[in-house]
């Protein structure tokens, strides 16, 4: 009996729900998310998007005649915790698929676990190319940083006409290091000059030393490919040091907290991301309306990506006709032209999605759609 307790359940657990004879057994889907901590809005938004998607799907009868059950495990925005969270979901809860994470560092920590367990994993928003290189069970529903770095590099040269840019990146995050790299390469190949290259660590609160060095190099813009919490503080301190040039960023900025922390300091800045809430596409508007009704807030890119990722998984489950790992993996890999809120999604042979990007401008204390950039 003790051994039975220890051994938990076997793979592909078929537990009957107690007291409901004839009820369909839910399909457990795991979600590794940063529900608390420095990047809490990423996890929270993504989770909400997924839940909303699953609710809609379940209301229409679920998938394969069974409802989808989202089991979310918090990694507190800490890299090794993502690994532990993934382990718990895979081993303890025996999930059929793992969704998450947003931060590339954390996806990189969780992915080997999914690969080892032969359970498909789909990251809704990790853009560092290394994530899907972990193995053939790891996918993503968003674009990758070689593309995103190019977007902002081109934007800076073509749209803003700047030739001299400083970079301030987060040394501790794979996302930031990678995106800074790609930006650097493209910007210099377009004839631009990186006049200062400074770094910080996520969790830092004091950036005046680096900003002073950057200010002395007289850049025309500063590229800050980090996450929103540090960005807010950086923006404030930059203004206090008299730095008035625009700051540019990536999808790590996509959070209402950027506006909350940065306040008036972030006015006039630009960043690239996955979707714009004020887009006039009817599909987007419908999603935004329903999300607002349910959660009382405008959905950000992570919510939209979560929503789409959940939808892709459900779609793949239907096509696979089974929850078994290899079959589900093949179905996900075969996803073509899935119409999502964040665009038309097709999974390519490298298990990434080719998608358009948008550039948003922070104006009047809000994110406003500025430009759309088609997938290269």
């Amino acid at each position, binding site marked *: 009996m003790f051994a039975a307790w220890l051994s938990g359940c076997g793979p592909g657990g078929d537990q009957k729900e107690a007291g409901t004879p004839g009820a369909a057994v839910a399909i457990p889907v795991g979600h590794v998310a940063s529900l*608390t901590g420095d990047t809490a809005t990423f996890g929270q938004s993504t989770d909400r998007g997924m839940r909303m998607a699953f609710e809609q799907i379940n209301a229409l009868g679920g998938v394969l005649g069974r409802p989808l059950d989202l089991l979310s495990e918090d990694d507190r925005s800490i890299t090794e915790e993502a690994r532990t969270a993934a382990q718990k979901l895979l081993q303890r809860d025996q999930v059929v698929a793992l969704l998450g994470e947003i931060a590339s560092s954390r996806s990189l920590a969780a992915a080997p676990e999914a690969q080892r367990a032969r359970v498909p994993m789909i990251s809704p928003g990790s853009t560092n190319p290394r994530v899907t290189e972990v193995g053939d069970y790891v996918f993503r529903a968003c674009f990758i940083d070689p593309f995103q770095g190019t977007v902002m590099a081109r934007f800076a040269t073509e749209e803003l006409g700047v030739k001299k840019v400083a970079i301030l990146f987060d040394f501790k995050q794979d996302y930031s290091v990678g995106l800074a790299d790609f930006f650097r390469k493209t910007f210099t190949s377009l004839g631009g000059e990186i006049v200062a290259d*400074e770094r910080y*660590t996520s969790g830092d609160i004091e950036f005046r030393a*680096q900003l*002073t060095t950057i200010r*002395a190099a007289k850049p025309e813009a500063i590229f800050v490919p980090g996450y929103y919490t540090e960005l807010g503080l950086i923006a*404030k301190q930059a203004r206090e*040091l008299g730095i008035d040039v625009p700051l540019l960023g990536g999808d790590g900025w996509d959070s209402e907290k950027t506006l909350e922390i940065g306040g008036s300091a972030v006015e006039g800045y630009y960043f690239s991301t996955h979707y714009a809430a004020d887009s006039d596409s009817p599909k987007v508007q419908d999603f935004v309306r329903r999300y607002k009704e349910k959660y009382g807030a405008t959905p950000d890119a992570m919510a939209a990506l979560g929503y789409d990722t959940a939808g892709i998984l459900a779609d793949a489950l239907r096509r696979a006709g089974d929850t078994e790992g290899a079959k589900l993996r093949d179905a996900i890999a075969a996803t073509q032209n899935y119409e999502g809120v964040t665009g038309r999604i097709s999974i390519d042979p490298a298990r990434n999605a080719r998608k358009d990007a948008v550039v948003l401008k922070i104006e009047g204390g809000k994110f406003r759609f500025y430009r759309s950039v088609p997938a290269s």
Partner: protein
Amino acid sequence: MEQFLQQVLNGIAWGSIYALIALGYTMVYGVLKLINFAHGEIYMVGAMAGYYTAHALGFATEPSLTGLFSVLLLSMAACALLGAAIERVAYRPLRSAPRLASLITAIGISLLLQNGGQLLFGADPKFFPALVTSRVALRAGTVAVSNIQLIVLGTAVVLMVGLELVVMRTRFGRAMRAVSVDAPAAALMGVPVDRVISGTFMLGSALAAAAGILVGLSNPKIDPLMGLMPGLKAFVAAVLGGIGSIPGAMVGGLLLGVVETLVSAYLSSTYRDAIAFVILIAILLYRPTGLFGAAQVEKV
């Protein structure tokens, strides 16, 4: 050159926060020969208290100087009480026990406040309300000083001068100095040692709370674990200046702030935290009494 000047200015503003926290360490060590590991957490509670007070009193939405000072005073009072309570409950019973027991207990209190803070305040970072709208206040060429930096510096200076006056010019201050030189003798002379120690804790905690509010102003992200590193570094500052010496703690704090900023600017910001510990080791090995401390003879 201007850039260097700016860095030094930034460093001094940052260092004054270390100085305020270091004062608490040094005073407590002076009277009790105890390293109050929980002191960094008092700084955190000060910031949190300021956050909640600002929201409760409505200053979060309407920035004003009166708002700032009310929040500052209330927070200082709250932490003074907290400091006294900790001393009463956890340190006083162990005064005659081996030093190790007090050290371990202090670490225990530190962990308790951190983790209790996570439960009470939530682990997510909070953003201290802008009680003063930040803008550039002074400009000389490219060197810019913000109004917030001026407030931080100004408040710190006022508090430090105030402390110096209390320690040097009041009866309580004299009693404090007596207890730190020779507690049993002071007791024999009629000094109420227990009350003096309580008062010392209260003063030190109030200063740490002020540091918490000032950091909330200049670096608005606050969370329950924010006191760990600054606490340790402020301790290094106190040791650097000579533990037990009040002017030492002030100078040590400012010096550490400047060194940290310069290392961050000219070497790499990733070494920022390490430099404090390197200084600590260097001081402990080569000049354990610090810059202003007096040599101590170890009696057998």
